[in-house]
């Protein structure tokens, strides 16, 4: 990790440099350095998930606002959301409805409310998963928001931000060969490329292992109480994977790398160029509950 102990102040300093670099004041080398790293916000709250596994809407809203404010280096959540979308945008919110571990409805509703509050017309916002290709809002979307839970996956190693876009392909099985190694290519599809403004990898109750391919076993999920938020889906998945692997080591009491290996994350950087997977280049900004963060 380049700077695992990064604080809010460190982050603002870094992004301040980015702003100066964008203005052309600093030398070219400075710009290169900024472009070669990426920021991921990890925000956690001890009480965001209740005993029966339901997300606390008020806490979740607060976590999301705080994280997005940090990601966009804004003074207030309102300012941050106004940078995520503008009133003229048509916004598709790609969710995940796998019934055993879906994107929390509370998060979906908060995202919709924030997008509308930023000035987007309600008719120009839609949440969808399996129907996105036939969804009129997604068909004319100018902006995408990506939100799904992190979980172990029998074929791709993990299902995270990258894999969540597989439904943008008219033929998802085309992306299955070699343990889904080319999921990064989804992000270069014409209906996707350059449109994603925000990624949220839900780490409230992630699943770190699976034996039955499409069944959920609560034994292999735990309350982590976190969200990973950022612009780079590859970096979010890379950090999420590290957390999952740390949990596997604790649970199995031996080195237990993800199986099958989630090789699509590194390939998304090296082969498809859609983000940064190298943990040395990922700055993790930690907010909220720190205990047992596993990273």
């Amino acid at each position: 990790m380049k700077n695992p102990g990064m604080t809010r102040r460190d982050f603002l300093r870094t992004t301040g440099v980015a702003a100066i670099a964008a203005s052309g004041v600093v030398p070219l080398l400075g710009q290169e350095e900024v472009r070669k790293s990426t920021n991921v916000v990890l925000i956690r709250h001890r009480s965001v998930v209740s005993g029966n596994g339901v997300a606390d809407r008020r806490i979740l809203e607060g976590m999301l606002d705080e994280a997005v404010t940090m990601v966009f280096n804004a003074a207030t959540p309102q300012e941050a959301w106004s940078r995520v979308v503008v009133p003229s945008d048509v916004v598709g919110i790609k969710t995940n409805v796998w019934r055993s571990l879906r994107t929390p409805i509370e998060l979906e509703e908060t995202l919709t409310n924030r997008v509308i509050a930023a000035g987007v017309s309600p008719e120009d916002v839609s949440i969808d998963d399996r129907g996105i290709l036939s969804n009129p809002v997604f068909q004319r979307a100018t902006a995408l928001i990506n939100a799904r839970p992190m979980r172990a996956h029998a074929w791709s190693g993990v299902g995270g931000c990258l894999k969540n876009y597989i439904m943008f392909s008219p033929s998802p099985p085309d992306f299955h060969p070699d343990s889904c190694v080319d999921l990064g290519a989804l992000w270069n599809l014409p209906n996707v490329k350059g449109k994603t403004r925000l990624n949220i990898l839900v780490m409230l109750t992630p699943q770190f292992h699976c034996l039955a391919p499409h069944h959920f076993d609560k034994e292999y999920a735990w309350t982590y109480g976190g969200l990973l938020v950022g612009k780079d889906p590859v970096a979010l998945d890379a950090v999420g994977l590290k957390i999952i692997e740390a949990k596997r080591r604790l649970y199995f009491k031996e080195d237990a790398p993800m199986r099958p290996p989630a090789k699509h994350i590194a390939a998304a950087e090296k082969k498809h160029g859609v983000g940064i997977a190298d943990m040395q280049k990922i700055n993790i900004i930690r907010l909220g509950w720190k205990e047992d963060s596993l990273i």
Partner: protein
Amino acid sequence: MRTFLPVSVDGWTISEPPRLYSGKEIFEYMDGAGEVYLAYRFERLLVQRYARPDQEEILVEIFDMGASQNAFGTSTYMRGRGPGVRVGRDGEFKNGLLCFWRGRYYVCVKIERENPRATRALLTIGKMIAKAIGVDGERPRLLGCLPAGAYQPKTVRYFFREEILNTHFSLPEGILLPLKGIAEGLLVRLKRDRSHLLVLVYSDVADAESAYQTFSKTSVQDDSMAGISRSQNGTWTACERINHCLMLNVDASTTKGAHDILATVGRRLP
């Protein structure tokens, strides 16, 4: 497969028409996880739901795997997730999910949240399906190479594809082993030292020999110790080839132990 299903059990009745998926239609029912079943030569899936007022829905999935060795292999993919139950063959039940195989079929029966009545009904449905299937089906002959008592039964994994092996196991760093051309494979953990025993059957002797040569070139540090490699953690990995078969003992505690088990397995190969 519909004939395997009971009409009702303890007040639970069929709540909607059964759904049938063939081949790659499995992706309409589940996402990429369907590849696991396809890797075991899946043919058809029947999904049936049972409902009873104010009770858990019971979900039944019957996978027609085409042959008993495929159904057995599928069951080994998931083996070890829960305690054994006497339903079908190698039945296991945990956290509301019952899995077993019998004949050419692999069966899952599931409830979201357990309660005593729903659990009883679930197990009853499982037993009725197992009985209706009628024939046990044979385990793969390759299992005969495993010496009884030497391995942990719940760690047996039987497979046809590299991706399935990768789900359960990875070779020590630095060791390369081409898996192109494998027809079937077997992975178990030995009781002796918790090392892994891997048996790979290649379609072609040349592929088996090529894999053995690759292992030798990438892993053997000492010419005097052909077919054996020491890992950084001090354990040993031994490899031998007999005709189409490659046998490896990975992370063995001693070289003698590794050679002994491979010799035993080699004598018992079908």
